[in-house]
């Protein structure tokens, strides 16, 4: 009888990981990251896209070291435990499209699932609406999975393939440290106001990213997977980590005085429920079809998964599209003492509708062609083909 003996595979392992993320994210906010945005994978990839000039939204440009830390920390964990396994070839272009629409949906809400939890931990009740949308999107994805949805098999690749994403992150880190200007008036761009201008010291962000990347690779922490596993098979393993994140972030926010309960005028958030819900439903469906939340896709990239890396690039490309075409959500704001409710532009609404159509289409048409379950004569099974 095989026992899942290691700490990282245990329930305590996933709980410790979730709690660590919750505490460190809340601390990052007090160290300088934007409010209720200690960590937001979607927002931070969007900030990186802005710093590189892939979009020119002035308020959201910064090379976020947390993202580089996630990939490199996961890589270190995978290498240390002989789990670094370069692989690719499972419908990469479809994954790019899923990443793109996942980002468009997440930016309509203004956050990935991690930030939805952190927003809730900070008292932003709009997060409940977003999380409900996320759950619906994942539930739709589960129905496709039950009906045989598959992006097909990956295959082992030469090890160089697995190093591409970690090396790209090293490159981004070098750009963040040395801030070279190679063209006058060109990248690297950096926000002077808005969320992109708010950040913890580089070393603190990087250290937190590395630690979380290491832990999350070991424990397979995944917000989308936590909802999926509950719906699919009543398995509460992953969601106990997500619950721990929420509880730990709430307690840390209480201790740091970072809680403000309500719907209106929350930081970097809008209170238009329909589009908070719809945006996250799109993101949840795309994450479910791609097999992981944006954080998980980074950790998988770190352990050599080239397909997850393509999803990440899709998200970064999607951030460019979202801001260049004005699809991202606009925050609520107080103007002359009056609340100006933000929300999503008409173009953003159409983009979410298009994204839902495309993702539903992908769910219907992608099927595994080969028979995975088969009967063979009861002889020793040949493996390692």
């Amino acid at each position: 009888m095989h026992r899942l003996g290691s700490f990282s595979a245990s329930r305590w392992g996933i709980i410790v990981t979730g709690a660590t993320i919750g505490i460190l994210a809340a601390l990052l906010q007090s160290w300088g990251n934007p409010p209720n945005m200690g960590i937001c994978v979607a927002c931070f990839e969007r900030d990186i896209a802005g710093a590189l000039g892939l979009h020119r939204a002035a308020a959201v440009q910064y090379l976020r070291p947390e993202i580089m830390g996630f990939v490199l920390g996961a890589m270190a964990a995978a290498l240390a435990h002989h789990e670094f396994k370069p692989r690719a070839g499972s419908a990469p272009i479809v994954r790019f499209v899923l990443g793109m629409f996942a980002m468009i949906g997440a930016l309509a809400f203004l956050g990935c699932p991690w930030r939805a939890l952190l927003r809730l931990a900070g008292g932003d009740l709009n997060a409940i609406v977003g999380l409900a949308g996320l759950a619906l999107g994942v539930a739709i994805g589960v129905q496709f999975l039950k009906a045989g949805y598959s992006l097909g098999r990956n295959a082992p690749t030469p090890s160089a393939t697995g190093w591409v994403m970690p090396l790209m992150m090293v490159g981004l880190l070098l750009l963040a440290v040395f801030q070279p200007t190679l063209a006058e008036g060109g990248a690297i761009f950096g926000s002077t106001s808005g969320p992109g201008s708010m950040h913890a010291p580089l070393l603190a962000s990087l250290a937190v990213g590395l630690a979380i990347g290491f832990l999350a690779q070991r424990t397979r922490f995944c917000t989308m997977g936590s909802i999926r596993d509950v719906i699919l098979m009543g398995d509460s393993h992953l969601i106990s980590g997500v619950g721990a994140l929420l509880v730990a972030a709430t307690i840390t926010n209480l201790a740091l005085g970072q809680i403000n309960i309500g719907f209106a005028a929350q930081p970097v958030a809008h209170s238009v429920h329909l589009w908070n819900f719809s945006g996250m439903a799109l993101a949840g469906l795309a994450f479910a079809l791609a097999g992981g939340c944006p954080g998980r896709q980074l950790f998988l990239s770190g352990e050599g998964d080239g397909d997850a890396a393509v999803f990440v690039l899709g998200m970064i490309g999607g951030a460019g599209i979202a801001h260049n075409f004005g699809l991202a959500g606009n925050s609520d704001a107080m103007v002359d003492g009056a609340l100006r409710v933000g929300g999503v532009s008409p173009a953003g609404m159409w983009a979410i509708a298009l994204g839902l159509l495309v993702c539903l289409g992908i769910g219907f048409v992608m099927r595994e062609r080969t028979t995975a379950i088969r009967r063979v004569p009861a002889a020793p099974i040949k493996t390692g083909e």
Partner: protein
Amino acid sequence: MDAVVVDARGLSCPQPVILTRQAIKQASFPIEVLVDTVTSRDNVTRAAQKMGCSVQVQQVEGGFTLTLSQ
């Protein structure tokens, strides 16, 4: 008697688990599940044990063979 083989190599989470659950519900034991990552090994083991199976794991070249019995 024929053995049932679930070839889940190269499939990403949660497909190995879904296929294994299908096989457990439909097929006769023992069931051999072929996976190629530690994540799939652990996920399939956890799901099979939850469904009352005992699981033997053998490391093979390029992955693991899990033998599920009741």
